[in-house]
């Protein structure tokens, strides 16, 4: 039973006698793997306590999330189909591609509940793969940032150069810039749409140069989307900046602007939409979204549900372990 007895006792008594040449390993808690350590063990007490604690923390969080989500007022209005005139309803594509057709479309939305300012305006695109690999890569961050790298368009094909030189901003992302516009009015008074702070400050300051101006953009070939005012530097082109933050998922929203006044319940908002953007060719849906916000973000019940589920599950496990522990201990 005591294998160590023989050696260790020898070692201690002889240690004085051993010469410098002794190779005896010096004792330290580290080399002998005896560092002080905490050895947690999953005892029923600990496990049940943990489960209950998780449950107690998660269920309130879930409830709070749900509550916050419930308080968000969100109006979603799909307009891509309705904005196609009836004579084009069989051929929406032709309608949208034609330069002659009238793209203006008037819609009206009823506010279901009071919406405190700021009211965020989003456009929502469905089935639009902004995360397609070719699409994501088709941009030139260098070109966007500084005037000097204007001709750095190597990743931008097929929207890299025009007859007059490099396209600024180049690439498919910029080329396909969303170009529907909305004008809002309530009770015949126009609602101002503010574009302040809809893009990330960091993007405006560092990613998009204040000395870079659009050039040769949408000048020839197939026009993908919006045109840019060539007298405004890229750092001020907030819609472009928002668009260039490519969405992670195929159904996404992009911030269009903010309405800085409160909207009262049952207000009729009339929206004049310039329905320019072609989503008809890939069955993409276009929606206009007006939404308030809360600490949890927009309207989203999922997190609350997830927290409640996990919390509930933990409580359930805690109770079942407790029952097993009481009735059938090992």
């Amino acid at each position, binding site marked *: 039973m005591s294998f160590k007895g023989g050696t260790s006792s020898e070692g201690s008594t002889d240690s004085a006698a051993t010469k410098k*040449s002794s190779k*005896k390993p010096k004792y330290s808690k580290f080399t002998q793997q005896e*560092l*002080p350590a905490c050895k947690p063990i999953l005892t029923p007490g600990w496990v049940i306590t943990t489960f209950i604690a998780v449950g107690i923390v998660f269920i309130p969080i879930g409830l709070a999330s749900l509550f916050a989500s419930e308080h968000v007022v969100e109006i979603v209005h799909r307009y891509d189909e309705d904005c196609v005139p009836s004579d084009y309803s069989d051929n929406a594509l032709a309608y949208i591609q034609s330069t002659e057709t009238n793209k203006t479309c008037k819609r009206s939305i009823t506010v279901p509940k009071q919406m405190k300012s700021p009211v965020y305006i989003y456009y929502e695109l469905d089935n639009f793969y902004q995360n397609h690999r*070719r699409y994501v890569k088709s941009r030139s961050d260098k070109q966007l940032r500084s005037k000097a790298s204007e001709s750095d368009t190597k990743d931008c094909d097929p929207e890299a150069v025009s007859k007059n030189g490099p396209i600024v901003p180049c690439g498919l992302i910029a080329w396909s810039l969303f170009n529907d516009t909305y004008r809002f009015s309530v009770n015949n008074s126009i609602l101002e749409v503010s574009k302040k702070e809809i893009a990330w400050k960091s993007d405006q300051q560092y990613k998009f140069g204040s000395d870079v101006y659009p050039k040769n953009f949408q000048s020839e070939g197939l026009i*993908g989307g919006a045109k840019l005012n060539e007298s405004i530097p890229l750092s001020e082109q907030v819609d472009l900046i928002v668009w260039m933050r490519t969405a992670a*998922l195929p159904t996404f929203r992009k911030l269009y602007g903010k309405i800085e006044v409160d909207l009262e319940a049952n207000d009729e908002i009339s929206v004049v939409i310039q329905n320019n953007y072609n989503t008809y060719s890939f069955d993409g849906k276009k929606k206009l979204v007006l939404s308030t916000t809360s600490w949890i973000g927009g309207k989203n019940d999922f997190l609350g549900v*997830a927290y409640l589920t*996990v919390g509930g599950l933990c409580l359930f496990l805690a109770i079942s372990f407790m029952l097993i522990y009481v009735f059938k201990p*090992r």
Partner: protein
Amino acid sequence: MASKRPLLIPSPRTPSTLEYPSLPTFADLLKPVPEDLNSVSTMDSNNNPIENQQNSEHPFHSSSRGSISSLQSRNSGSGNSIREVPIKFGSKGAESDGLGLSQKEINDEDARLIYINDPAKTNERFEFSGNSIRTAKYSFITFLPRNLFEQFHRVAYIYFLVIAILNQLPQLAVFGRGASVLPLAFVLSVTAIKDAYEDYRRHRADRIENNRLAWVLADNQFQQKKWKDIRVGEVIKIASNETLPCDLVLLSTSDSTGVAYVQTINLDGESNLKTRYAKQETLSKVPEKDKISGVIKCEKPNRNIYGFMANMEVDGKRVSLGPTNIILRGCELKNTGWAIGVAVYAGRETKAMLNNSGAPSKRSRLENQMNRETIILSMFLVILCTIVSVCAAVWLKRFADYLTIIQFYHKKDYSETPVEDYNYYGWGLEIFFTFLMSVIVFQIMIPISLYISMELVRVGQAYFMIRDARMYDESSNSRFQCRALNINEDLGQIRYVFSDKTGTLTENKMEFQCASIWGTDYSSGKSSSQDNQVGCSSQDNGTVLRPKVVVRTDPELQRLLRSEKETEKGKNIHNFFLALAACNTIVPLTKDTSDPSVKLIDYQGESPDEQALVYAAATYGFMLIERTSGHIIIDVQGHIQRYDVLGLHEFDSDRKRMSVILGCPDQTVKLFVKGADTSMFNVIDKSLNLDVINATESHLYKYSSTGLRTLVIGMRELSDSEFQIWQSAYEHATTALYGRAGLLRKVAYSVESNLSILGASAIEDKLQLGVPEAIEALRVAGIKVWVLTGDKQETAISIGYSSKLLTSKMKQIIINNNSMESCRRSLEDAKNLCKKFQTTSSITQNGEGSSGTTRTPIALIIDGTSLVYILDSELEEPLFELACECSVVLCCRVAPLQKAGIVALVKNRTDDMTLAIGDGANDVSMIQMADVGIGISGQEGRQAVMASDFAMGQFRFLVTLLLVHGHWNYQRMAYMILYNFYRNAVFVLVLFWYTLFTCFTLTTAVTEWSSMLYSVIYTSLPTIVVAILDKDLSRRTLLRYPPLYGAGQREEKYNLTLFWITMLDTLWQSIAAFFIPLLAYWKSTIDISSLGDLWTLAVVILVNLHLAMDVIRWTWITHATIWGSIVATFLAVMVIDAIPSLFGYWAIFNAAGTAAFWLCLLVIIVAALLPRFAVKFCFEYFRPSDIQIAREAEKFGDVTQLGGAEIELNQMQESTQQVAR
């Protein structure tokens, strides 16, 4: 070593062609070197005239040759990886076997010709290698290509290289080019730097070695020359205490008879002096004056350091050369003024260099199993990639129209009709590219970091094993050594231990214990060494001589020696000790002590048994003072007496005895014979003193049953006529040109007869400290201990008892057979017997209703002769089956290669891990054959250590090594491998899920830098640290409950089931980590980078917490690395997102500003780890493993509170109580 040269001179009667090699006794029987086998057994044949008494070291019956050579040829034939240099084991032996000619012929094509002192001519035809050596592997130019070439022997590296290359193709570039090469470059450069440093050190050592100086004959005088410039054929002069620069054939020495003493410690580790001889024909020549010319024809370079075959033509005479005529590179010349020799092998062709292949590389079991899982993971990878490419194919087909509109693939322009393709390679190729791209994206499914982590972990584990104070051997001042770095974890899975006996279980320090003289047993020796100081010193010119070692003596025997000089009893005792002092080949060396008037006599000899006997004789007052080959001087109780050595018949394996014929001062001629009991009783005259013989026999039985090594001593007084007959026969034999060995043996046979018995000596081969406890602990741990020894059966069995290997409860089955048929029969009988034991014991078991652990243990004892018939025949299978039933197997009288054969017997038939432990050159083959080879750095030199994977000072450390370190290593490594698979798979799966939402185009939300850093920085350190430091159980617990070792044997910590469970868990965790954010952020403004950062952080925290959940011991280091890694990941993600030129600039800062981000993170982690936590708890609580129970016992201290665990623990306690007993 000694201050004075010993005076051993061959007697004038002995022609100098008669070699005086070592005179081995039983101890030597145990240690021939495996390579020696064929050549030596060839020399055994009687018609071979070449004098080669080296064969006396050969312990095999000639009948064993067949099986041995076949074993060897099998080894060499299958390209055995153990040996790097190909050696022809069989060819040479078989060849000369067939020839059996009077002159040993070396085939011209197999020979090299050396013209003495004519290096130009020697090297003219053959380009013999120069003497410069190169142990370094690389030069400046070759370093990069060769090192890379060697590194890419790892298949995994090639895989990563291919992927890095694929990523360089513009069509496939998923990651930035730099980022994709980085991990591989990192791994390669770390290894390369390590190799470069090691090689630099070797270069430096080589340079020093090559620039040493030696005296070389040139222009008729000896000039200093650098070692590296020495060429084959040159004549070299070596001074005393100098090291030999190359292999030399001795021409002459400072000794007039051509004797040179060498120490071979650098070669085989044996510290005693060996004698080498110059041939008479060249002895007298002075190289400076008379031009020596001659031709040496010798065999091609080989690595057999105990064999050499050559002949030399000098002055028209042809003389043959053997292993005693050559001194090898690395030896040191001792006690010899100078020696002159001709270089025959130089540089890398020297035997020392040929033997210089480091430890063989083995692969651990875990790593082999890991390959299986790696293949499964590769299949996963292929499946994932196939899914992606099939989906992509369908997508491309279905939405072919969209391609133009979104302009991903075609540039469509309504103004110009033709559609311009943009990097679109057609449907088929696009799919193919998608497949390759997905391989690149999912590459870390096969964890590259695992390989480097494993190396680091093993280094760490080795560090702790080396630094373990409990595996430090005080007596030899040696630490544990890790010579192989890749099989640490195998130590935790050993099922079979094959142990050598002498030097491993025992100390191999022979100690004279007792004697039976003239039928009286003197074994009550209790007196301390103080009392007999008087009797064992000798006055010589005012100086006192004392033997270096004093043995304890029997007071009765002392008294008899002093008082009863004239009685018959006294005379016999006198003769007995005279025989001990004279009948040997020990060389006494005197050594100065601090006191100038006292000198110590150190007895040098090759056999520790003989040394022990001579020391014993000296202690009893028969001190051997001087030995030349013509006479010996013995101080007999204060009177210095001179005895003429008239003849000496050396030990050989046929006779198993040696004899010496002495001309005594009283003008009588006496023959003293000493040998093994079996051979001695054949030549003892049974008509004389029958009662003495019977008494001696019973004493012998008593001695050997207590584990002592016995020798029987007999004598005869030769009458004048007898002496005359013998002398003429002896002279005829020694001067005979042909068949000298055979003639000498015949002479010996004829004279060694009708002896009267003097008595028997018993020498104790002491058990090492802690051996019985260690064996018991190993047995309790479920490890089968087999002892393979060269000792005879009785000794082996008695050592078996004293070492607790055998117990009285055991049933012994002994197999001793002389033919194949009888072997077969006894094996069958033994098997039936086994079955009977088992059925009876199982019946009793059922009656008692206890578990199956209490069946009758059976011990199998089998001897080498039987093994000759069994190994390599169809009887192997029955033997194996039988051996499996037995709890102990003891093999005695086995040859080195049979040891390897037995290991192979087990290794080839089971998946169980085997471990061989031994200390001598005879264990080398077994050490290399076993999965794990351990060398004891003890008395017998370093051959075993050189061949071993691990080396340590004492057998008992094996317990600590296996039960503690082996257990830890296995647990740690097993967990680490599984964890690494999980860790990378979880990440890959998250990437995979995202692919399904990106039109299957392999966009990665996680930045490429994070993907690359994931397994390098984010998650690697914790697993390495945990795998080095975590301990499931304390050392104390593991030693107290050896059965805990079974976890490793049963592969509890790493098996396919665990792998699949882990993979299921992985799947769930990846789903939780991916889909929670996906659903939470669906229809939101989230951008790719923010979501990517969330996924990165979630996965990293997840895998680190997963690890944290399994950590058993939290030291500050563990805390620091796990939490540190998470913090480091946050920092890294922030740094990456703070670089404006990267795509995801500032994403993390924007995302982290929202509550949803943190809520997601929290719920992901809890949801992902929940199932694992619950299942882990259920298993640990409701179905605890032994380890779990022990852990809880360790923590709570009180066994009785453990409820259900009680029974199992009680069992363990029972078994440990056995250990204590």
